[in-house]
């Protein structure tokens, strides 16, 4: 293959990765932004989303799209419910203390991971894509499903943005993020907002997982790498900045795709980590973040 088409292929692969990463990092960023909780278990919500997607897709018979759609609806709901319960049972009891929540979510990480190993097992299982259409480009054919993943991610991020900026729920979330005490003085039940945001963050990770699972198989250890990359994206983009998260996900995803194809995946990870170090040294609030108030 010539250089041009090769680069196009690498970019497309990178965009698919960026699409999934942006969704997942957005969840992490929301939870940190509103609750000031560093959710180390975020990758496990992603893993649970994928494992549950496999489970729900096996329940349905007939066309693979039925199983996939079932997973797309149910998996985020179940993951959201689990996150909601974890928030009520654990994070609320430790009063969202920053250090304690890190330790607590590390604990949650292992509980979820080992629960998946116990009930789901150590095998990797594929989910059949809902459709197998190939888009024929002049140089190569490309999976229509992967392009659909990019589209779905754009749609979901736009939707999240609309909710945050145009609805009362978004207004309440932003008020809680800026000033928790004053929000309470204006009748905002901060406590419930936290539970909702934690569930929403986990659901975004689960949706990302459902989208990826026809491309990459479901496995109980699959949460670790995306968690690391999400942290990288969120640090580069600036915590709590939706625009920063999207831009950083594109930067990391596409560069990872291109560098992995032309050089090596290890180099891609090294450069991403170097970029994080640079950002932390020279612009600690992230590319689009605002300095701490």
């Amino acid at each position, binding site marked *: 293959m010539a250089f041009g088409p090769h680069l196009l292929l690498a970019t497309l692969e990178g965009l698919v990765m960026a699409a999934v990463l942006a969704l997942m990092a957005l969840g992490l960023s929301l939870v940190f932004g509103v609750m000031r909780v560093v959710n180390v278990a975020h990758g496990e919500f992603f893993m649970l989303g994928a494992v549950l997607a496999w489970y729900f897709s096996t329940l349905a018979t007939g066309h693979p799209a039925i199983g996939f759609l079932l997973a797309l609806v149910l998996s985020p709901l179940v993951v959201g419910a689990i996150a909601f319960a974890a928030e009520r049972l654990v994070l609320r009891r430790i009063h969202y203390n920053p250090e304690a929540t890190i330790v607590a979510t590390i604990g949650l990480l292992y509980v979820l991971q080992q629960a998946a190993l116990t009930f789901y097992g150590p095998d990797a299982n594929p989910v059949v894509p809902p459709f197998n259409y190939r888009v024929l480009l002049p140089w190569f054919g490309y999976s229509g499903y992967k392009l659909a993943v990019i589209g779905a991610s754009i749609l979901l991020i736009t939707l999240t943005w609309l909710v945050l900026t145009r609805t009362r729920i978004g207004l309440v979330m932003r008020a809680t993020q800026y000033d928790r*005490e*004053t929000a309470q*003085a204006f009748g*905002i039940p901060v406590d419930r907002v936290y539970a909702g945001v934690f569930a929403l963050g986990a659901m975004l990770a689960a949706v990302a997982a459902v989208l990826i699972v026809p491309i990459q198989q479901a496995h109980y250890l699959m949460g670790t790498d995306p968690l690391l990359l999400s942290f990288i994206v969120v640090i580069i983009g600036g915590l709590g900045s939706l625009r920063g998260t999207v831009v950083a996900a594109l930067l990391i995803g596409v560069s990872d795709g291109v560098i992995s194809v032309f050089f090596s995946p290890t180099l891609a990870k090294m450069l991403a980590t170097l970029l994080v170090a640079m950002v932390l040294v020279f612009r600690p609030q992230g590319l689009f973040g605002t300095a701490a108030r």
Partner: protein
Amino acid sequence: MTDVLAIQGLDCAYGEVQVLYGVSLSLRRGEVLCLLGRNGAGKTTLLKAIMGLVPARAGSVRLGETELTALPAWQVPKHGVAYVPQGRRLFAEMTVAENIEIGLMARGKGAATREAVLDLFPLLRERLKQRSGTLSGGEQQMLAMARALCLEPEVLLLDEPTEGLMPSMIAKIRETVVELRRRGVSTILVEQRVDAVLSVADRVAFLENGHNRETVDVAVLRADPEMVKRYVGVG
């Protein structure tokens, strides 16, 4: 006159440090009650305790028949207590309109309330789309008051509303307090400076080291300026 708000034997503490010791105070319907006291006397803590933002160790805060200390903090404003915190505490990254919207949402008030509040502060009407953090100090204070008035409160808590403002703004804030009293809003006003108070207050309560020493009519205070010196230190 009937009491709208009755505080009885209120103890409050931040962790181990006790700030309020058995404070008792009543706010009569339609009056402006001013809290005076030195820095650290517990004025702000008392307002936060009424809002439920600082938990009460002992004692009670009753709004009519409702015991406010038994409610979670976010329920207090729903019963008609509005708070203008010290330093204004606007949602600085939101627009003026969004700050007002949050005030309206607190008690489910609608467009009529919004218009009435904006009529009180016409300047804000021109700035609705502006980010509230970029307003001048006086405008921010107006917005903080407007946001609180969107609750159509029965009780209004004002924490040093004139702090750091230029004289014309101080006059505007004072006029607003008087206008609200005319409309029957009962107000607790925290101030450091006596001269800012005498013209608007009906009664004055002196806080000293977390104790409520005395509550007097403003006429008594005018007749005995020594009193101010005793509790606030300066004349």
